Structure formats: structure tokens, C-alpha cells
């Protein structure tokens, strides 16, 4: 069998994946880049972003989409049931407040070897372009470098730019991150009838915790996860729900988080963020929240009830109690994406039964809330970058 036709063992039998390049060589080239990355952080990235991106380029992480989509690598003569091949050109629309999505998606999509057309938000820090530039400058000549230099096209333009229509017309797959309206606008452009449209539109996330499962280490993890994007990301905890807790419990939890903040997060936020946090503290108080500023105005922690309107603000974490898990589930927003948990038994049957009745897309430890993967917003989008030929053998 050709080295470019890889065999995987899935649930219903084996499948072949036609990649058109040497997977081991591709993994080695990403690893080469990863080794370069540990030497310093480019100015476009924060230290945390760069560290996450470098970790994402590890072998296990890069192979995870294959395992989730096709199964484990296999040899032998088990019945073949499918052949997968990349659909073709992939067009990606990134949102304005993007951070790592561009580079992460680009890395994952690179394993299709298909041409990539990436539009960054017109007001965004373009990390995808910065990452490709960095990679092309540092990679040795090889397939990956040539792929990034020659088959990845990046642009930064507005939503009314005619290049949006060009991208949609050329692409076999359209991936849109943005508002519902932005996704609808992209998919409204003329596109090939057999192309696939994937939308990652408005979503929000929560953290659910039980008092018995909390300790300072886990609370510090929660603070670190929150501090990465505040509430600005779809995977950011906009609300911390204390299962079985009342208002007094929420205030105690808030106070402990306030105590842990200075030792956990030592870097100052930018001046405008500190200022906006002061504003958000006052607005939250006016709305009935018992809010406090974290050390050096780095964030706002607001204790209250589910009946209060959301306090708002990119660095404001609402802390509310739910007398039972069912009450927390009933109060989930329609746009719920991820629940990050710190629970005694998150895999217990009662939790899974509860989840089955919700629209929650991810149920992960708090520490993994921002981890990006092939299964996103309820489906395996990475698998959809390939088309399937059914095999009867």
C-alpha cells in the first residue's frame, strides 16, 4: 500500500485515508518548528498563547484529529469499509477578536494538504499571518514549508470586500467563526453545490463547581483559565455556578478567589482593562451584584443570584449558586458551548443523564475549557474536511 494511503481501524472496520504527503515527515517538520518556538515569543503573541501553540504542535496533539475521526493507525487485513480523501480548498473566516483560533485551525487543516484561504478580521490582531510568517522563516526547506508558503493565502479585509465572495466560490469547505449574521452572510455567497459550510457562531460557556471538589489548586486553575480571555471567548466561563451553593456560599467562594488572585496572576492588565473593570464593578453593583475588584483592578468577581441580569464586562466573572444541578441546567443559555467542571464525579451517571437533556457541546475539566480540537460546537468538523467513499470489499 502506498505510504500516502494510511490505514486506520475504526468501529465498523478499517478505513483508508489518502493524504498525498508523508504523515511522519509532516509531523517531524511541525516538531522541528516546535523546537524553534521554545527559544522565544514573537511580539504578536502573548507568552501564554505561544506556549499553548507550541504544545499544540506535539505529536500526540497533532494525531488526535486522526484518532477522533478515523481511529487508530492499523495494519492487516480487517475489512475495509471507507476511503477518505480531502475535499479540496478550505476557506476560513476568522472573527475580529480572534486569538489562537487562526494558527490552531491552520495547523489542523494543514493535514489535509488542501489549499487554505484564510480571512482574518479587519480589526483583528492577525496571529495566523504572524504564525505562518514565523514558520516559513524558520522551517527548513521541505513539504511543510512549501505548503505554508505556497498553498496558504492569508488576507485581512472587511465583510463587504469582494474577496469574501471569491473565497466562497473557490472553496470546497467554508469554515466561519463569527456572529450568526456573519456566518449567514458568508454562506449566502455563491458556492459550489457540493461544498460544505461549517459555522461556529455565537456561543458561551460556564464553569460548574461543587464545594467539596474545590481546593486552592483547582481554584487557581479556574482563575488562570478565566484570565486568559476573561469572558470574551466562546470557551470562557462567563458564569461560575456553585452547585448546591447559596448566596453566602458564593460570597465565600468569591472572597477565596480574591485572596488567591495576586499569587496566581501576577501580571498587570493593560490600563484600559483596569479602568473598564472599575466601570464594570460599579455597573454590577448598581444591578444588584455583590462585586469586588481583584488585586490591581485585574478583574471583577461578582457574587449574586441567577435572577440577576448578567453583570457584563470582558473581565467580570459572575458567581451564582444553584441549589441543585437540575436548576443549573435549566438556567443554561441557549447558546451554551462548554461547561468546565470541578466536580467530585464528573463522569457519574447522573451528570451524563443531565447533560443528555441539554445543548452542551463540551463537558471538560475547567483546565481544558480553552483546548481546541477536531470536535467543536457539536460535530467533528475536521472529519468534514474529508469526503468519504464507501468501500465494499
Amino acid at each position: 500500500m502506498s505510504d500516502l494511503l494510511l490505514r486506520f481501524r475504526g468501529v465498523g472496520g478499517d478505513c483508508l485515508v489518502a493524504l498525498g504527503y508523508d504523515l511522519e515527515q509532516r509531523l517531524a517538520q511541525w516538531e522541528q518548528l516546535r523546537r524553534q518556538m521554545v527559544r522565544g515569543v514573537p511580539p504578536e503573541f502573548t507568552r501564554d498563547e505561544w506556549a499553548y501553540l507550541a504544545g499544540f504542535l506535539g505529536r500526540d496533539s497533532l494525531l488526535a484529529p486522526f484518532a477522533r475521526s478515523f481511529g487508530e493507525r492499523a495494519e492487516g487485513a480487517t475489512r475495509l469499509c471507507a476511503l477518505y480523501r480531502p475535499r479540496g480548498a478550505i476557506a476560513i473566516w476568522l472573527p475580529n477578536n480572534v486569538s489562537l483560533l487562526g494558527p490552531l485551525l491552520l495547523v489542523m487543516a494543514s493535514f489535509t494538504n488542501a489549499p487554505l484561504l484564510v480571512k482574518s478580521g479587519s480589526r483583528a490582531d492577525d496571529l495566523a499571518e504572524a504564525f505562518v510568517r514565523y514558520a516559513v522563516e524558520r522551517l527548513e526547506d521541505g513539504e511543510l514549508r512549501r505548503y505554508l508558503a505556497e498553498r496558504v493565502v492569508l488576507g485581512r479585509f472587511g465583510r463587504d470586500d469582494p474577496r469574501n465572495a471569491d473565497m466562497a466560490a473557490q472553496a470546497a469547505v467554508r469554515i466561519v467563526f463569527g456572529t450568526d449574521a456573519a456566518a449567514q452572510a458568508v454562506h449566502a455567497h455563491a458556492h459550489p453545490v457540493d461544498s460544505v459550510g461549517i459555522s461556529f457562531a455565537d456561543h458561551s460557556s460556564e464553569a460548574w463547581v461543587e464545594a467539596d471538589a474545590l481546593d486552592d489548586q483547582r481554584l487557581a486553575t479556574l482563575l488562570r483559565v478565566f484570565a486568559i480571555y476573561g469572558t470574551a471567548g466562546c470557551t470562557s466561563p462567563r458564569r461560575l455556578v456553585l452547585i448546591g451553593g447559596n448566596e453566602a456560599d458564593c460570597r465565600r467562594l468569591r472572597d477565596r478567589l480574591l485572596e488567591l488572585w495576586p499569587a496566581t496572576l501576577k501580571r498587570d492588565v493593560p490600563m484600559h482593562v483596569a479602568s473598564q473593570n472599575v466601570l464594570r464593578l460599579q455597573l454590577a453593583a448598581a444591578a444588584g451584584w455583590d462585586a469586588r475588584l481583584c488585586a490591581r483592578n485585574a478583574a471583577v468577581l461578582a457574587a449574586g443570584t441567577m435572577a440577576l441580569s448578567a453583570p457584563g464586562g470582558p473581565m467580570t466573572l459572575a458567581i451564582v449558586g444553584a441549589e441543585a444541578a437540575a436548576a443549573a441546567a435549566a438556567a443554561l443559555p441557549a447558546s451554551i458551548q462548554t461547561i468546565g467542571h470541578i466536580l467530585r464525579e464528573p463522569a457519574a451517571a447522573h451528570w451524563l443523564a443531565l447533560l443528555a437533556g441539554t445543548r452542551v457541546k463540551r463537558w471538560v475539566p475547567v483546565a481544558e475549557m480553552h483546548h481546541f480540537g477536531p470536535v467543536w460546537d457539536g460535530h467533528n468538523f475536521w472529519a468534514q474536511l474529508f469526503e468519504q467513499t464507501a468501500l465494499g470489499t
Partner: protein
Amino acid sequence: MSHLLDQPPFAARDDAALLAELNALTRWHLDGCADYRAVWPRWNGAATIDALPWLHVGAFKHGAWRTSGESMKHQRTLASSSTGGSASRIALDEKSSALQARSSGAILAELLGPEQRPLVILDDVRSLQQRGEVSARVTAAMSLRPLASEMHFVVSAAATPDAVDWSRLAAVCATHRRLLVYGFTWMLWTAWATAAIPAALRDSLAAARVDFVHSGGWKKLEALRVGRDEFDRALLATVGPGSSVLDFYGLVEQVGILYPLCSAGFRHVPRWAAAIVRDPWTLEPLVGEPGMLQLLNPLAHGAPYHSVLTEDLGRIASGACPCGRAGQRFEFLGRVPKAEVRGCANV
């Protein structure tokens, strides 16, 4: 009524009197505004001016702050936008408006003389009924009303400020030798300093004494690489001897208070107001170091905008000002730098 207004504006401040008025006003707002009370639930009087409560300037973009009480008559709502977009909304009232008019009148009279004269406004009269940045300009212009014998809006479309109605200005010049001209800084540059003024009017202006007053900041002119000296020279070259240019800083959340720029480069605080500079990360008061400006005055009764933490940067100066004015002064250092908070997806 604030007795502080009975004194000249730029003199040594009676801190005890100002503190007493601000404490009383704060109590008034706490009693009459539930939202304000929720923000400062435990406040029970301040021993120093920097211990007085305040609202962040952004609060006025997020809700209708309004204080009710005996004899309080709210009138209209001032709406203005910042560069960022959304509008601040300030509930005005009869009592405050009277105090604010006295305040701005006293400040301007001190700087420009008390005589009334025609006020020429480089804006569109229709801006009076509009919201957004345009109404911010008009609000600033209206603060000059106490010195105005008559008012003339001479721009026919605010969006194209170079469309000045020169014939209207010529008619004013034909009957007056002293004028007050107000415009946002960039509008004065665009619509007047660099405009092709008709020759006949140019001759009339050369015989007139004109006091130009402007506010609104230098951002747009910085982009054009126009400095203050060049700006002043260009304006004064169009008018007669004795003319002047006055730059003042103010904001709609502090209506009635003007902070003029002196020849030594400082903004002077009238004796019925106070400026505090706070560390953005600790909110501690700073002297001699840059930080966020908090502005206070005892003129605001209809809503708690008597003490506002702005997103402007300043530095309190100590000692006597070389310009000779007494009282508090500060350097204005621009706006808090902005950047979008990064997120992984959509909000």
C-alpha cells in the same frame, strides 16, 4: 446654590468649603438615586476631597442615572458620543443648569472679558437636535452662551465643515468689531485656518478682534502634523490685533466646568471644582505622577455626575503656575490607550 461661585474662578481654593458642598451633594445623590446608593452602599461622609465617591465616566453610557428629590425638575438629556461610539447620557435639571451657566460664564469672563459679543459657531444648527459627536460639539459651544449677545451657526453641513456660510459671517462683521468664534479644534483648522476666506471678508476680519475658543482635542490634527503654535498662528493671521486663541478641556459629564489651557501648558481648575489623579491599578491618588483624571464639582444635582472618574490621563502639578493663576492645575496627557480584549471567538 454654591457660594463658591461668588468668587473669581482662578484663585486659591477653600478646600473645606468645597468638601462640605461635595459631601452634601453626595448625600443628596445617595438619598435620591438608588443605583448610586447601590454602588456606594457604605459611604458615610468624606474627610478629604479624594475620599469622596465617584462614578466611572463609562457609567453614563450604560444607564439612566437620575437623582430625584424635593423640587428637582429634570429637563433634557445631554447625549454625546466618544471616539469609541456609544453615547453618554446626562440628565440635566433646572437648578444645575443655572449653576452650570454661572460657572462657565464666570470662567470665560475671567479669560475673555465680561463683554457680550456675537458668538459664531462653526457647526450646523441642526446639530442642536442631533445626538452623537455633533451634539457634543454643540454642548461645548453652548457653554459660551453667557458671553454671547447673539449666536450664528455658520456651517451648513456638519459632515462637511469646509462648507462655511461666509456671507453670514460677513453680515456679522459688518456690524460688530468684536467676535467670539467657537469650534472643535479640527473644525477650526479645517473650516477657518486653512479655508479660502473671501477677500472682502478677510479685510473685515483684519479689523476685528476675535477670540477663538476651541476644544475637543488634537487627535485629528496630530494626524495632519499640525502643532499648537502653527494652529494658533494660522488662526490669528486671519484676524485683527488683540485677538486670542483659547483651548479648553471639558466633558459633557462635567458640564459647566471648563479647564482652560494656560500659556505655561497647564489646565487650570476653577476654585469650585477639583481634579484628582488616580493610579489606574490601585485607584490611589497621585501627585506629580500620571494617572486617570477624576473631576469633581458641586454643580450637578439632577444626576450623580458631580464626581467622575474619566478615562483621560493627567498629572497634577504642584507649586505656583508660571502663568500667574492661583489654584489647582494639571497637565492633560491624552486618553487611556485602548485595545480590544482578545477572545477565542465571538462576543
